[in-house]
């Protein structure tokens, strides 16, 4: 099974990288773009027979290592094998 963990800065946490990207895009002429936030996407392969177990494993991994809850929120998507 596969899991995607999307990690984004919490609202109100300074995101200087997002701001720099936004500025660059504006300079390139993308004047309609008025906010950019940069996060991370982590793709994980898990040996797990069911979705609930997979969700729990990735949830634990996110809390223990992948995300820092002081500054980041995470969102998990489980993708079943075809």
């Amino acid at each position: 099974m596969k899991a995607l963990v999307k990690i984004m800065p919490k609202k109100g946490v300074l995101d200087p990288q997002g701001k720099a990207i936004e500025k660059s895009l504006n300079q390139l002429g993308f004047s309609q773009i008025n906010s950019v936030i940069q996060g991370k996407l982590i793709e994980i392969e898990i040996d797990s027979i069911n979705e609930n177990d997979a969700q729990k494993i990735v949830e634990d991994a996110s809390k223990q290592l992948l995300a820092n809850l002081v500054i980041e929120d995470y969102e998990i998507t489980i993708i079943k094998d075809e």
Partner: protein
Amino acid sequence: MEISVIVFPGSNCDRDVAVSLKKVFKRNPKMVWHKEQTLPKSDLIVLPGGFSYGDYLRCGSMAANSPIMSEIIKCGENGTFIIGICNGFQILTETNLLPGTLIRNRDLSFICKNLPLKVENSKSRFTHKYSANEIIEIPVAHNEGNYFADQKTIKNIEDKDLVVFRYCNKDGIINDETNPNGSKNNIAGIINEQGNILGMMPHPERATDKVAGLIDGEKFFISVLESIQ
């Protein structure tokens, strides 16, 4: 007195801090590889600066989960002195031994220069050799030194006098202009509530030898020595 300096893959200030410790404590610290499961008996543990694990994921996040860290967390909770400098500070926040975290510098640039700091708490076990509100000069060298915590945490550490150093200018002015990296309220170094764990972004170990330029870090190490004795 026994001192351990923890060495992670990517630590690069471990030797510098060992030299400073030897100068002040008159003994060689033990250099402890991060994969060790047991820590030699230690009265002081130092997590040095550097780029442990290449700063992958988040600075200090991998090192915080190194095998040796569970021993260090136990020691810290039992009152052993712990100093985390730069990457060491980042590791201490990732283990939750210190509150908050360190994010990318506000202006996205690596800062490497000597900066004035105000000693905000000169009563701590790490700073009592300094006089109240003394302005000292200590080198900084970091890309992720922007101290962040939520409002409640900031209020708590300020109310309890846990902020030991703040960035300022030569006259001691603390404001946005004298804030090099965007840290909340110019915070450069903090201690925990029990007062045995300190984290700071500036490098006192680079300011203990006149030949190298600065000497203001010496009182920091002497404070620690006297507190342990």
